[in-house]
């Protein structure tokens, strides 16, 4: 297969769960070598999340979970007990042949291990290190506990989300992938700077700050005008119709958004309701917005008689932005994702072969791809410690005996 864009970049990855691993996935799919550092006593807890493949009865539960398998494909896996002196020493040896250290622990962990950036820099002057705790590495709240469920509200995303007239609504752990995505961009920027200057650096990424940037226009309405946005469901201040409409079947919806007169015309034609165009309530965009309750009711009558994908196709053919609200099963059936090969099949020695979420963008000359499934726990100990580091077999056996690089959680 062709060379991938980030081949030659080696990232030592101490991160767990979502933010850091998602960051690593975006880079691994494009060819970066991500060495995921876990331990038998403390492996990525996502390994125990999700579901096991139906019909698979292998003994090692921590290798066959659905979430871990998708998120950590393309990565190498090693085990090091980072709480031991030998483990830290081994980590430092790996550091010397790596380009980036990625971690998403709470603020004090690396410091408590004696492995913060000032120390790492002494071992490798041009190392790039990135930390991505909830609130950043400094400030009065740096030691506060954060998980996606409380970080999303703390970043401002929840206050502006909700059904009209209702309380703010949870958005899930949205801040995790936002932080991971932001981190990937930060690492690539630092790599670029280092390529032209030889200088590494430290990146302090606050998950809350990264997420707040995605509501920048909302923030500026407050700083310019003192205005706080109310929750407004799926509607918008100037456009109508703009919402999700119930379709035939159980919990089936189609999103329809009209922002121009041309799209409005298309909607009237596509739904077979030319009389709406001459209805005085809907004469122009302003009055359509004013009368959107009635408009939504009429549109719902049309969508209620149709399959959501059929409604989408009919309206798109008439030039109207419309999208069926796809559930995961429907994503795999969708013709656009299929045409673009967005769900390639990936084989894993214990989990089996499955179609999996693909690469996030297409690069014409150095395309990303999924070369391998997620690593078994400690799968690449031999390769990394012997081939990459050149440790003699004797030393490896000693470390194994002492439990420093054990990969077997059943023997703790």
């Amino acid at each position: 297969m062709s060379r991938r864009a980030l081949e030659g970049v080696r990232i030592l990855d101490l991160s767990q769960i979502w933010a850091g691993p998602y960051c690593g996935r975006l880079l691994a799919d494009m060819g970066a070598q991500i060495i995921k550092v876990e331990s038998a006593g403390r492996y990525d807890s996502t390994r125990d999340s999700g579901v096991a493949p139906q019909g698979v009865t292998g003994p090692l539960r921590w290798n066959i979970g659905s979430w871990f398998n998708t998120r950590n494909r393309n990565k190498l896996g090693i085990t090091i007990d980072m709480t031991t002196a030998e483990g830290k020493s081994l980590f430092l040896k790996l550091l010397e042949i790596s380009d980036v250290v990625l971690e998403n622990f709470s603020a004090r962990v690396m410091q408590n291990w004696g492995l913060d950036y000032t120390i790492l820099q002494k071992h490798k002057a041009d190392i790039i290190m990135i930390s991505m705790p909830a609130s950043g590495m400094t400030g009065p709240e740096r030691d506060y506990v954060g998980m996606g469920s409380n970080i999303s509200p703390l970043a401002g995303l929840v206050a502006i989300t909700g059904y009209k007239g209702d309380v703010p609504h949870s958005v899930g752990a949205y801040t995790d992938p936002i932080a991971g995505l932001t981190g990937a961009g930060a690492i690539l920027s630092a790599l670029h700077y280092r390529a032209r200057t030889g200088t590494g650096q430290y990146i302090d990424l606050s998950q809350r700050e990264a997420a707040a940037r995605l509501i920048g226009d909302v923030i500026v309405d407050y700083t310019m005008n003192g205005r706080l946005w109310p929750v407004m469901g799926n509607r918008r201040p100037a456009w109508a119709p703009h919402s999700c409409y119930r379709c035939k079947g159980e919990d089936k919806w189609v999103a329809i958004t009209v922002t121009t007169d041309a799209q409005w015309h298309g909607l009237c034609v596509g739904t077979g309701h030319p009389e709406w165009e001459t209805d005085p309530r809907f004469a122009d965009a302003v009055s359509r917005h004013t009368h959107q309750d009635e408009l939504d009711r009429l549109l719902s009558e049309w969508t209620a008689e149709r399959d959501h994908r059929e409604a989408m196709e009919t309206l798109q053919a008439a030039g109207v932005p419309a999208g069926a609200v796809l559930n995961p099963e429907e994503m795999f059936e969708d013709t656009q994702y299929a045409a673009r090969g967005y769900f390639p099949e990936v084989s894993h020695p214990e989990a089996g072969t499955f179609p999996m979420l693909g690469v996030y963008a297409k690069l014409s000359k150095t395309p990303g791809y999924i070369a391998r499934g997620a690593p078994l726990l400690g799968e690449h100990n031999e390769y990394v410690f012997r081939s990459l580091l050149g440790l003699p077999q004797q030393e490896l056996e000693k470390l194994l005996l002492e439990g420093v690089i054990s990969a077997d959680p059943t023997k703790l």
Partner: protein
Amino acid sequence: MVEGALSDLRVLDLSLDIAGPYCTGLLAGLGADVIKIEPLDGDPSRRAGPFFQGDPHPEKSGLFLYVNQGKRGVTLNLNTETGRGILRRLLPAADVIVESYAPGYLASLGLGYSQLEAINPRVVLTSVTHFGQDGPYQNWQGSELVDYALSGQLSRIGDQGKEPLKTGGSVEQYYAGQMAFVATMTAVFSRWTTGEGQHIDQAITEALASMVEMATADWQFAGVVGGMGRTSNQGSAGGPGQYLCKDGFVQITPRRGELFARLADFMDIPELADPRFATPEGRIEHKAELDRLMQPWLTAHTKLEIYQMGQEHRLLAGYTCTVEDLIESPQFQDRGYFVDVDHPFTGAIKYPGAPFKMSETPWQARRAPLLGEHNDEVYCGLLNYSKKELVMLRTLGVI
């Protein structure tokens, strides 16, 4: 000028609205020289609110001002042969071009990737569209809500029995723009080895779908739809969700693996330590009583108090921050996150600042350009047009 991580890069930004321009806005904040090339009547986001003091003036759109920070701005009419020639003349010095036109549009103007590559083999062309450059949906219309629906994410949020609920604002468009930034920098990095540029096809829906790792995996592995589900949001019975307190909403639960009785201690309500409340099942069964016990305490305290005290007690506490809360947050203030940026039409306004802090190459917050502000600087300064020729180009409707 302080050195930025990407100060060696020049970017031509042909993109419009949010996703593409947010990508190039990140490049600008990291030090790249981004030339925003707008149609003569400007990026449509100049006509979208929120507007400064409610005045719908093209230089007062808060959306435009935020997304397009740090760029130089020129106007260019690509529907003229002269205009297309100017773009070709800007090409040799460009590292990156970002565009968001419908698939095939630039090629129809003789400005497709193969034509651009012939002039500058090192250029990276990033094309951002809703659905991608090919496939049955390539000519379809997209929007924030439509993209959200087709990404698979929308089905996961909201209350059961009600319509699915999108996150407020335009979060998904920013997310996709940031994804395009990651793709662009990936290709720029590859250039260090290959010496060549390439064409990037970033579909917004594919960027968003990349977040649906858990639900798609559960479906494939076991035919179930797991992960985040559509459940009630109202905080209750000590579980997740929004709890109403004195002046807003908070989140307050023990940390994973810790006893619920810790809340009894924290709120000084000994009844909460009752063994009936010890398990999640028990808490749901006795929900009404539990909520009745907790509510007076919640009503008596502000969100900031509950957040700070809760965290000091090592509970998983949070508060639902409004934008006002973010601006006033002791943490955000200590970190200097919000930055003042001056602008001729609005004066100094606070904006979100750096998405991350780099120790060697700090983020640069500079204002967005006025329409055609740098026509002189770019066309005369870079391309050596005379002032007279600049006027001619204007009269001819080229710039």
